[in-house]
């Protein structure tokens, strides 16, 4: 078969997908790169013109941008817990007991149903006065003899890092459980038992039984077996999960903000993704929004590269 004919056939099969890819992915990416340097605004009364780095300058001098960046990073704080939780569940499911598939299915359900309906549900659950979460907390405290109100959750700007609302900094009075924690908790609930658990399960299945058995025979405790045998074997999977976690986490927070909090209270749950959405599709400042999305992209790229550099060293022993 001639190479030319091969190319023809190869491209023929590829064509529909390639066309779509060019029009809806590659093209837009290039376009976005350009748009970030213009003053493109769908309801502008000025003409479209190239403004160089003006969008970026405005962005980096805007206090709100940094606050939203902090928010975005804040939500990543839930990641270690979620990953540890998924690993824990995987270890449990790796045991030799009956009904594994049933457990695995039940535990996966939060992850599979995650979406608008579930977020609306959690918004109700978190209602400070009538939601079952606070009812439970107040009931529990009442049993212990403590008469206190539950936290305001989605309506509170308090947070566990005592971050202030207006500037990036610490304000002791802001310590508490607030909107950010509410969203993180919901995120952990939805993530544990989900895809990451399946990945760990598969990886655990690949850990050679001889290794663990040998360690146990040598008298090592369960914890040491895990720490010195299992965990290193899981390193590639953990690495993958962490990288994916960062990529997803940095561009996340949009649905939660749009559905549950409107980005508030006082902008504390606005992540960069929600900020981009508002700028682009509510205020129609497309040029500026493109610029922010480029910055986000570069952040993700940087984090991924850093992870790769350090992570790969861990993985290749």
């Amino acid at each position: 078969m001639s190479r030319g004919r091969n190319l023809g056939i190869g491209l023929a099969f590829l064509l529909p997908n390639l066309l779509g890819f060019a029009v809806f992915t590659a093209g837009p990416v290039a376009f976005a790169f350009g748009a970030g340097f213009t003053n493109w605004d769908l309801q502008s009364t000025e003409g479209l013109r190239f403004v160089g780095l003006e969008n970026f300058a405005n962005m980096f001098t805007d206090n709100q941008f940094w606050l939203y960046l902090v928010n975005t990073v804040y939500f990543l704080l839930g990641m270690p817990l979620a990953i540890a939780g998924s690993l824990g569940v995987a270890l449990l499911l790796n045991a030799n007991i009956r009904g594994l598939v049933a457990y695995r299915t039940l535990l996966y359900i939060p992850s599979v149903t995650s979406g608008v309906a579930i977020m609306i549900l959690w918004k109700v659950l978190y209602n400070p006065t009538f939601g079952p979460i606070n009812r439970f907390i107040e009931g529990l405290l009442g049993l212990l003899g403590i008469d206190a109100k539950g936290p305001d959750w989605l309506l509170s700007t308090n947070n566990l890092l005592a971050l202030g609302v207006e500037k990036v900094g610490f304000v002791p009075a802001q310590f508490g459980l607030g909107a950010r924690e509410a969203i993180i908790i919901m995120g952990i609930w939805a993530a544990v038992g989900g895809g990451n658990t399946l990945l760990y399960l598969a990886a655990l299945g690949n850990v050679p039984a001889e290794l663990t058995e040998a360690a146990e025979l040598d008298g090592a405790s369960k914890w040491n077996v895990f720490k010195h045998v299992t965990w290193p074997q899981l390193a590639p999977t953990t690495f993958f999960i962490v990288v994916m976690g960062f990529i997803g986490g940095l561009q996340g927070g949009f649905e939660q903000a749009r559905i549950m909090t409107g980005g508030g209270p006082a902008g504390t749950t606005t992540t960069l993704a929600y900020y981009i959405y508002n700028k682009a599709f509510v205020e129609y400042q497309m040029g500026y929004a493109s610029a922010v999305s480029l910055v986000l992209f570069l952040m993700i790229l940087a984090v991924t590269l850093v992870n790769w550099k350090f992570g790969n060293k861990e993985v290749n022993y």
Partner: protein
Amino acid sequence: MRALFVACFAVLVVLSLVAWQLVPPIDDQGKTRLVWSTDPNPVRQAQVDLFNKLNPDLHLVIDPNNTDQQKVIVQSQGGVGPDLFDCYATEQLEAFVLTGIAWDVTDELVSRDINVQSMVWPVTLSSFIYHDRVYGFPRNFGTNALWYNKNVFDEAGVPYPKEGWTWDDLIETAKKLTKRDKTGRPVRFGLYWDFNTTAELILQFGGRQFTPDGTKCIIDSPEAAEAVQLSRDLMYKHKVAPSPVDEAALTTQGGWGSGGMTWLMKGQVAMAYGGRWWLNLMRSETAKGLRLGCIPLPKSKVDTVIGYGGITCINRHSPRRGKALRFLLFLMSKPYNELLNDQADGMSAIREYCLTERFLHNPEHPEEDYNHVWLSLIQIAQPAEISPFLRGNEMAPLRNQLDLIKGNLKPVKQALRDAARDTNERILRNVRTSPRLRDLYEELTGRRP
């Protein structure tokens, strides 16, 4: 496999036909169709039906899905905009004019001997006239006043408020009407106060958000601060109005919508500051025994309120704009304005139709004995404050600080100082980057920024 895919494709094609069939059709019956992008308020349809009856060769339909300002602009620029659309504020009008979407109808009206300036309440003028050219007509206008639920007052044994009362009177009354249950949770508030009303309060206390020419934000003046402080105190000091957390508690307690109007009707608030357009939606409850009263806010330093309304404009790009003009003429006509006043969808923007016995005493609703309040208020009304140097969505620095006050996260004076500082920075930034604004700024202040 091929068969499977072909079968799936066939099923999808059938479903597509079903989907297309399900798109709601509009029967024009050979008339010219005009599309009006407006809100889906039920009264709107009665108004449209009246227009269609009086203009048998036209078929006006409502498109309630695309009323948002940016969507109208985007669609019109994409060539699929409506023939008529609504505009709710002066800065929106400016955007519509400058993007070339609103049709300048000044000459059309002059040629028909219509002098809109003398017809309407003065407060409405800036909402549809831009740089001395007419771009639409107000389909309604109005102000806010304090509604109160007489049943709740009676049950609590509190006498109805009287005109001429003071803010102290109001707070006292509201305190008596605020009820809590055994655990301290509020079950009824004396007052529903939309925090956005603070803008009006600022004017009443003698302050301003902006200088009259809009070049500077002065919300940190002592008068404005006093007004904002009162607004905040209603929630956190006197505790007669629900704070954001309180509102979340109230909403799950029943009622089909949220917002002051529902709570007023259900008796969860005793008084609520709102417009005459509420009345239309509340009539379903007054028929069932709800008794309402209405009274202006207590007077302060400056006797004024903010007036607002909906303006209908014609899409300059519409090929049917000549016919659409007849709708604007309809908005100026007696049948429409009488219907509007009867429906209590706000009130007519045209003076003569409000100065009638029928407006003051609607024979179908004799219990509505408070229309004189609306009449007196619209005469002292002024439009909301704007700055030509800030687009609507650039009021964010201001709004952010007000949100912090509303959430009790920051002291009033500090927040207002920061709001003024940030807003002025934004104004100057806009002036520096836009040639048009730069010229305007220089013209108004005689200074180069």
